């Protein structure tokens, strides 16, 4: 059970006033808010043991290294990875996807195929386009239906012995659809294809067990996971990570360097060149702990209540159309009202203190599919309330009557 009053106290930003109104933050799919414990963890790092990690003999360096590696283990255990070196710290989901996509340049050739879904975020499209350009591999797009649900029969048809990679968002940021990754993994694996799952939108809401699901690669962003900006995680199976060449060259990722030849360090260091986001990595561990203290189940249940309530309240507004009507959704609602431009609604809502996202949500192909320029997207977190939803629904009505 969520103790909403207690939880809201963890997020000082929720007391902000925007244009005279109390902030209502419904842009959680873009960036989640950060609980005090996470911010304090960052401050504590800088005030007490800020230091470059690894290789350092002095105490601060030891403390920082231990805290950073402890965070890696917290994250390992959150995703139930087999080894802690399967957890690679990145600067975010985009970085994680690029690391893998760039690594596959050595492993793909002309004639190979990559399947991605019709509902991917640009970060999970462009790196694969770049990979295809480099290698001559072909990008195939698995379609969705008008509910924003993937058509699984198509996966069965598209996936074949040429399929080398299948990339798919666990949850669509623009629609909220939770994709059936278990089925996709099984189809892909039966064709010996490797699967990268973009978990940016899933990790804050759904407990993931990478071993149980037999996941190959999984990426997440700290800033969507109650953690800080500038940090994320790539999970990869040991044997797959070993196949990838290093992504960046630098300190940390080497074993020996001479001008003639350089040998690379083992996992995870091979992929962590240079000084990492130490404070961020440590704080991301704290954020994951924070989420687990509340509990994924309690979060899912609470957010689902908000989702169902908001959906039914919004649908009472005449002319409002929701995009993404899967049975299986996280607390994300994308909608439009008649021909009113999302930007206009977003602007009026902001005047009333409500933060929603408007536009294409970095998923232009989805907008093209629905033939719309964009949507208004509201996305909830476990610190949001029904009262906030009521205020939003009334505000939308007000905006509609102003703009209509």
């Amino acid at each position, binding site marked *: 059970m969520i103790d909403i009053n207690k939880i809201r106290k963890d997020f000082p930003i929720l007391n902000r006033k925007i*244009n005279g109104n109390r902030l209502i933050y419904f842009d959680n799919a873009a960036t989640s808010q950060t609980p005090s414990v996470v911010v304090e963890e960052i401050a504590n790092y800088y005030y007490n043991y800020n230091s470059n990690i690894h290789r350092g003999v002095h105490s601060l360096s030891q403390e920082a290294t231990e805290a950073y590696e402890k965070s890696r283990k917290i994250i390992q255990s959150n995703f139930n990875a087999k080894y802690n070196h399967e957890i690679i710290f990145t600067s975010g989901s985009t970085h994680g996807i690029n690391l893998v996509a760039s690594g596959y340049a050595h492993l793909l050739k002309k004639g190979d195929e990559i399947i991605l879904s019709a509902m991917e975020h640009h970060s999970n499209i462009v790196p694969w386009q770049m990979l295809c350009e480099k290698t001559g591999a072909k990008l195939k797009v698995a379609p969705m239906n008008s509910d924003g649900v993937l058509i699984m029969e198509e996966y069965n048809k598209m996936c074949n012995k040429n399929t080398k990679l299948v990339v798919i968002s666990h949850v669509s940021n623009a629609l909220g659809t939770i994709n059936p990754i278990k089925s996709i993994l099984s189809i892909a694996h039966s064709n010996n294809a490797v699967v990268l799952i973009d978990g940016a939108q899933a990790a804050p809401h759904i407990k993931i067990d990478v071993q149980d699901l037999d996941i190959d690669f999984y990426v997440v962003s700290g800033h969507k996971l109650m953690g800080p900006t500038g940090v994320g995680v790539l999970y990869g199976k040991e044997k797959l990570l070993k196949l990838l060449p290093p992504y960046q060259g630098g300190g940390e990722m080497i074993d020996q360097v001479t001008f003639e030849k350089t040998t690379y360090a083992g996992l995870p260091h091979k992929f962590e060149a240079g000084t990492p986001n130490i404070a961020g990595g440590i704080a991301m561990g704290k954020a994951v702990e924070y989420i687990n203290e509340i509990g994924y189940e309690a979060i899912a249940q609470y957010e689902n209540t908000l989702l169902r309530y908001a959906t039914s309240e919004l649908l009472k507004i005449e002319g409002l159309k929701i995009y993404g009507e899967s049975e299986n959704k996280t607390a994300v609602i994308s909608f439009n009202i008649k021909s*009113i*431009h*999302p*930007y*206009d609604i*977003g*602007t*009026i809502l902001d*005047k009333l203190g409500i933060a929603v996202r*408007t*536009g294409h949500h970095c998923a232009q192909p989805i907008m093209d599919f629905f033939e719309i*320029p*964009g949507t208004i997207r509201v996305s909830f977190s476990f610190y949001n309330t029904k009262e906030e939803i009521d205020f939003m629904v009334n505000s939308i009505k007000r905006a509609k009557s*102003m*703009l209509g």
Partner: protein
Amino acid sequence: MKKIEIIQKEIIDEFNLFDDWMQRYEYMIDLGKSIPTIDPKNKNDKNIINGCQSKVWVHAELKENKVLYTADSDAIITKGIIALLLRVFSNQHPRDILLADTSFIDKIGLKEHLSPTRANGLLSMVKQLKMYAVAYQTQVK
């Protein structure tokens, strides 16, 4: 032709009558609806300014040493501000357009819409207005 400063002053006075943002926005929305429509043939890809969120089209022509602007947007609030900008800039001498600033937008409480980080294309539109003025200035005596 009224001078640019005079028009700006008028707009500021008008907005001073409003009690709150609601009234200002309602007025802007009305302006947006009443904006003299751009000739459809000028609402083309050449004249588009991509603001990521809302699109803006601007067209300009020179008539009797004055620049006549027409413009449009797909978002109504953006259109409202365009209406104000055109009221100030259109039908003026290129030289005066180049000298004019947009601080009146600030004074009527709509500053945020001209922020360089706003994804609505308005700031690029202002730049575009000035570019036309630069171009036409060479053609006037």
